[in-house]
């Protein structure tokens, strides 16, 4: 198709590079350098979307990131669909496919538009006032209807295959915005040697200069100066230029988050590059040069397709060579309307009239408009516009002493409006700087800085190209100087310079700070006129007046009640006009109304860049022991325990080649350990080496047990409490020497225990001569358990007398195993004779394999965590975190014996003396046997005396561990039961949803209660 609305020449598009693209299934053409918006406009397409609530037809409002209407879905393929992208920011590439949203069946005929007819009954907050009857209908009926209507685009349905990366960067000066102020700031900072990052959200750096056709800087055309300046900056080692990069968040201590769009503009992006990149920039100094946003005027029918911001229309013409129409009416409250009129006229657009809200029209631009023969009408407002899918006429009327006169209708295909410019203070406000109302400028401007930041140019109310350049340069220079004076960004700001340090010769129209805030008068029946304040959310001036009528006085209340400013543009086009309307309605000056908070992100930011590379296997560290691969090669099933993957069980092919299920594998593994020997990878246990002359004293303070008398070469089971008296961790501790302990912790508890110990050691007892070193990963731990354990390892061990007499239960010896140094523990978590072979991890697998080979003649059976759990439960050994839950005392867990009663103090001791800790109904560890031995209780099931009691049924406790014991031929369970030890012998019930299970409370040791097997 032809570009009927292209200018004859000019613009920054590459007319030698035509591109073909599709919108709503239709093929169009554009040029390299176009946005989707400019290309559609060049094709005469203005109908681009439907509004959120009333489904009104909408066209482009702006040419930038403030666009509220032109939201489209762009999809490279089914998995790469992105909803809600602004067509004004989507760069055209060959083959681009875009779809309009929030319409059915089509954009030009949308069934949802029935809402527009019903709009009198759907004012702001209508949903708070109705849909309440009958009770329950909200969830079943009304809410699904409302939900289906709401939402704009369609969420992607397939996992996003693209990559996102993150990068931390540091610089002396970060400049946000590469318009004239930002460029000058970057130049000044770069020239003084500072390390500079300059970013801009647009594809091209240059900001407003990209739309200039007549301005000059330093005697050159502004665009030539821009090219030269960019070349200058790009040629410097100390400057990083980041186009397509939005500074979206200002975080404490000068951390600024940037989102760089890396590949969306490429027709064939390949796989090497990420789609987007998060830059986390720690800047010593920041220069915010974010410019200003043009304000719409709030008049009836201002949402017709073809009604757009005047300066955006100028950008389409000057930068993209796209005419917004053939006949335009302009409604303005400042000189921007005239500037747009002149440039559009030059581009070949007929300017039918300029309605100026101001009574006094003077100055250079209006004079040039008059000279160009344009019909200029002071004290004139637009009171309406016609045209459903495209504006076809505008109604103008004179305003005199506040009264609106008769209307005149002027045919047109576009209406350009300008209410003036709002400084873009978003990032400044995010930095927690206080905004100050400037009555003369009619705007909120940056006040005192909190962070090490300064604003430059239009975003702080400076206007006129020359002053903007000079301000930018001065701020950039000052920022560079400040960055040299202070080392850390974690400090407050220094004041902005007052005087420019370099003069720029620039020639361009100065639009001044004139403008209008609020709704313009229209004299029409207010019930029938819709003057939009927030386009996307369909908030009209009426809605805001209704909110104030209903008592919403805070601007936050007005915002939340009407949803103005809460659309995907976050109020960029609506906030100031809302303030103006509220101010008038409450007869309160704007600065007294307050301002809604500017929150990150500045523009919507892809989830993917926050997640970055963290996905799948590298979502979190995936920790494997040195023996992991052997287990995997031998068919182990694994389970997640913290970051670790642990072998859960080792299924084997049974009869007929079928793989065992977990129960069969665990039964086999358990029997093997009890009958002969098994081996288990216990490497994930936490280990801490505690060394120093005061090691025993430190142990005494940290654990409930007494340690002073533990001889070197002996092991002891230790219990650690939190200061509040509850069990925190447990583990076997070996005394290697008078001044050296080898401490083990639970798998998940390792970092917590070390941190807990360091806390006390460093902050409470720094006088103790003792040091802690994590050795978790130094040692692989191979548990060899079962009556044949000694026979299995004996041939491999050198330097240790393994005889019962020389090496009884709970001892540690150092020697070698096949030449590898080992710390050999005689310890059991199974109740059988057992050893734990600690070897340096590098040899963990080799030693494991050697033990496996040596055990073959005994049928040695590798077993996993599930068998370990069953075996220890048969013995009544607790697992911290399973039997205990952070609310159990040592006595609750039958560990009272491990508490050194004679010790004057240890961490947690004082808390044990509180009333609650010895209350008679505390839950205590017991065993449970189901009356029916085949029934295995559910872990987590509750225990009651009378399951038929009325709700709430009094509960006595719960099942903590429950298994089928193959060795005992029945089920077993451990439980925490109120006053449990006194209930031994009682029958209780475990109620399930459909029935209750009878259990007997028993001692929590089911197997070898005398512990005779421990010694083999």
């Amino acid at each position: 198709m032809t570009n009927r609305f292209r200018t004859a020449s000019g613009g920054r598009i590459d007319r030698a590079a035509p591109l073909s693209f599709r919108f709503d299934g239709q093929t169009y053409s554009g040029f390299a350098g176009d946005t989707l918006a400019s290309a559609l406009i060049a094709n005469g397409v203005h109908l681009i979307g439907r509004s959120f609530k009333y489904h009104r037809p909408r066209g482009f409002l702006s040419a930038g990131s403030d666009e509220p209407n032109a939201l489209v879905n762009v999809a490279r393929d089914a998995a790469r669909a992105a909803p809600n992208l602004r067509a004004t920011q989507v760069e055209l590439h060959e083959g681009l496919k875009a779809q309009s949203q929030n319409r059915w069946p089509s954009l030009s005929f949308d069934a949802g538009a029935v809402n527009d007819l019903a709009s009198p009954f759907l004012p702001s907050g209508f949903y708070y006032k109705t849909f309440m009857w009958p009770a329950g209908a909200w969830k079943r009926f009304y809410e699904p209807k409302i939900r289906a209507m709401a939402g704009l685009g369609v969420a992607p349905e397939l996992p996003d295959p693209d990559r996102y990366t993150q990068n931390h960067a540091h610089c002396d000066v970060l400049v946000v915005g590469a318009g004239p102020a930002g460029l000058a700031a970057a130049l000044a900072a770069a020239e003084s040697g500072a390390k500079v990052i300059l970013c801009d959200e647009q594809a091209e750096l240059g900001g407003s200069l990209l739309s200039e056709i007549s301005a000059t800087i330093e005697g050159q055309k502004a665009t030539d100066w821009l090219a030269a300046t960019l070349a200058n900056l790009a040629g410097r080692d100390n400057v990083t230029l980041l186009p397509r990069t939005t500074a979206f968040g200002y975080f404490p201590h000068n951390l600024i988050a940037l989102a760089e769009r890396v590949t969306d503009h490429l027709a064939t992006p390949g796989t090497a590059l990420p789609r987007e990149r998060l830059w986390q920039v720690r800047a010593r100094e920041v220069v915010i040069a974010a410019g200003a946003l043009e304000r719409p005027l709030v008049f009836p029918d201002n949402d017709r397709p073809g009604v757009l911001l005047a300066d955006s229309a100028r950008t389409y013409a000057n930068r993209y060579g796209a005419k917004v129409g053939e006949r335009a009416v302009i409604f303005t409250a400042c000189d921007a309307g005239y500037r747009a009129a002149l440039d559009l006229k030059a581009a070949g657009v007929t300017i039918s009239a300029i309605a100026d809200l101001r009574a006094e029209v003077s100055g250079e631009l209006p004079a040039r408009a008059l000279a160009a023969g344009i019909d200029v009408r002071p004290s004139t407002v637009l009171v309406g516009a016609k045209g459903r899918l495209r504006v076809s006429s505008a109604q103008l009327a004179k305003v005199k002493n506040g009264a609106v006169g008769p209307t005149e209708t002027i045919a047109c295909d576009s209406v350009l409006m300008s209410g003036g410019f709002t400084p873009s203070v978003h990032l400044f406000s995010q930095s927690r700087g206080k905004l100050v109302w400037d009555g003369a400028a009619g705007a909120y401007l940056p006040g005192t800085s909190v962070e090490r930041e300064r604003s430059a140019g239009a975003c702080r109310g400076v206007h006129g190209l020359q002053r903007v350049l000079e301000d930018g340069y001065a701020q950039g220079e000052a920022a560079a100087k400040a960055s040299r004076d202070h080392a850390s960004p974690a400090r407050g700001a220094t004041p902005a310079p007052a005087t420019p340090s370099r003069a720029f010769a620039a020639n361009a129209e100065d639009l001044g700070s004139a403008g209008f805030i609020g709704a313009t008068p229209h004299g029409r029946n207010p019930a029938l006129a819709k003057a939009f304040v927030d386009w996307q959310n369909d908030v009209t001036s009426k809605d805001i007046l209704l909110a104030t009528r209903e008592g919403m006085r805070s601007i936050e209340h007005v915002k939340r009640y009407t949803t103005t400013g809460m659309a995907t543009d976050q109020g960029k086009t609506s906030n100031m006009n809302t303030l103006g309307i509220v101010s008038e309605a409450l007869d309160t000056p704007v600065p007294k109304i307050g301002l809604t908070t500017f929150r990150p992100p500045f523009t919507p930011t892809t989830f993917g860049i926050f997640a970055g590379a963290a996905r799948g296997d590298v979502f979190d560290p995936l920790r494997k022991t040195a023996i992991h691969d052997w287990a995997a090669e031998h068919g182990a099933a694994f389970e997640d325990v913290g970051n670790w993957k642990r072998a859960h069980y080792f299924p084997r092919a049974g009869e007929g080649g079928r793989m065992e299920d977990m129960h069969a594998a665990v039964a086999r593994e358990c029997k093997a350990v009890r009958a002969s020997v098994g081996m288990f990878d216990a490497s994930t246990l936490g280990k801490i080496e505690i060394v120093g002359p005061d090691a025993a004293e430190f142990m005494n303070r940290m654990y409930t047990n007494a340690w002073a008398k533990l001889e070197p070469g002996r092991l002891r089971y230790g219990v650690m409490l939190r200061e509040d008296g509850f069990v925190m961790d447990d583990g076997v501790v070996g005394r290697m020497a008078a001044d050296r302990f080898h401490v083990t912790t639970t798998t998940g508890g390792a970092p917590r225990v070390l941190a807990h110990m360091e806390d006390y050691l460093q902050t409470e007892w720094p006088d103790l001569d003792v040091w802690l070193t994590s050795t978790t990963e130094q040692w692989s731990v191979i548990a060899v358990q079962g009556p044949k354990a000694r026979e299995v390892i004996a041939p491999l061990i050198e330097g240790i007398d393994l005889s019962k007499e020389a090496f009884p239960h709970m001892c540690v010896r150092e020697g070698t195993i096949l030449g590898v140094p080992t710390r050999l523990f005689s310890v059991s978590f199974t109740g059988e004779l057992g050893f734990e072979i600690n070897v340096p991890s590098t040899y963990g697998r080799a030693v494991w394999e050697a033990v496996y080979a040596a055990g073959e003649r005994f049928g040695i059976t590798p077993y996993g965590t599930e068998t370990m759990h069953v075996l220890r439960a048969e013995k009544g050994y607790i697992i911290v975190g399973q039997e205990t839950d952070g609310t159990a005392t040592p006595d609750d867990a039958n560990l009272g014996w491990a508490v050194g009663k004679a010790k004057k103090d240890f961490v947690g001791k004082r808390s044990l003396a509180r009333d609650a800790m010895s209350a008679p109904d505390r839950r205590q560890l017991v065993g449970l046997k189901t009356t029916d031995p085949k029934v295995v209780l559910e872990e987590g099931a509750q225990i009651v005396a009378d399951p038929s009691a009325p709700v709430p049924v009094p509960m006595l406790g719960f099942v903590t561990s429950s298994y089928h014991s193959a060795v005992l031929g029945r089920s077993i369970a451990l439980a925490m039961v109120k006053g449990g030890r006194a209930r031994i012998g009682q029958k209780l019930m475990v109620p399930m949803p459909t029935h209750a299970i009878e259990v007997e409370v028993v001692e929590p040791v089911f197997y070898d209660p005398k512990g005779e097997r421990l010694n083999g």
Partner: protein
Amino acid sequence: MQKFSGFELFRRALGGHKSWQPQWRNPEPKAEYDVIIVGAGGHGLAAAYYLAKEHGITNVAVIERGWLGGGNTGRNTTIVRSNYLFDESAALYEHAVKLWEGLSQDINYNVMYSARGVLMLAHNHHDEISFKRHVHANRLNGVDNEWLTAEQVKEFCPPLNITSMRYPIIGGALQRRGGTARHDAVAWGFARAADSRGVDIIQNCEVTGIRRNASGAVEGVETSRGFIRAKKVGVSAAGHTSVVMAMAGLRMPLESYPLQALVSEPVKPAFPTVVMSNTIHAYISQSDKGEMVIGAGTDAYTSYSQRGALHITAHTLDAICELVPQFRRLRMLRNWGGIVDVTPDRSPIIAKTPVPGLYVNCGWGTGGFKATPGSGHVFAHTIARDAPHAINAPFTLERFRDGFLIDEAAAAAVAH
């Protein structure tokens, strides 16, 4: 109070909605009230409403530093559930859920209570035991909660990824009566209903001191708009509780942390329920407007700054993208922070204090919204009767002295 209904909406539409009156007055503070509530969040407004409705105490002021509902009420992710483990907690939160179920009709304001279900994901055996313990205890306490297998999780919430992830989902606990409500409507609805019963809601009025008489009892509060007399003062100031209680000389077992939340751009319905994962730290639901509402745990350090760190948000979203990988291309629209007051056992304090006439409702941590009506209801009882309701009797300050903690966090979060 003007009645809200579809008919009224229709009727007044014909008049261009000109006849709607303010939903609440904007009164000047009186010299004296029977009860002053400090803090016009959901909890404080609910307490004022129930004081008037249930106890006939209408000479009540709710004093608010900023604008009503502007604290955590207007900043939270609006999840409502009651499947707590311990009897005391279950009773408290279930009390609230029962009130939620009839709240729109009771206060004649559609709070959009949406019982779309709250699904808590289990990623490992420890989660499974913990959730099953909750499920069984809840059933016996009359609270709905059920265990779902991984397949049932997927069926109930099809957008979830349950297998191809670092910590595959092995099941979940579902409370079908749980869901969400519209946070602003809760504040506004209670404000309107309380106001209509005579309660003065005084916004932009900061409490600067608590005046006590010679015997130590409360006499009233100093405010930025002058002294206001009252023999009973109920503090319902969330993250600022420590600050207000310090005015009465009390040091509290509280720390205030930043809690962040965020929403995506609105999209068509794509997520049917509320999903929470404690293991990978994130939760998500979709608002009626279409935004994905997302949150996680608190930031690491105490703060009143009402904002948090970027890396916390990043970790929240890496968890969400792991759970729902098709949402990677969605975009964050808004990110904000609140200040949550956290107790050592993660359970609230709703109680009398050592100061006669001073009552406190605090320590809701990250989960206060769900309790709003129930909390206000029992707090009103505590103030009116100078004695706790049976439901909040265990939630005392003294439990920290005596050791009778209600430690939901410990019971759920200890990994092995």
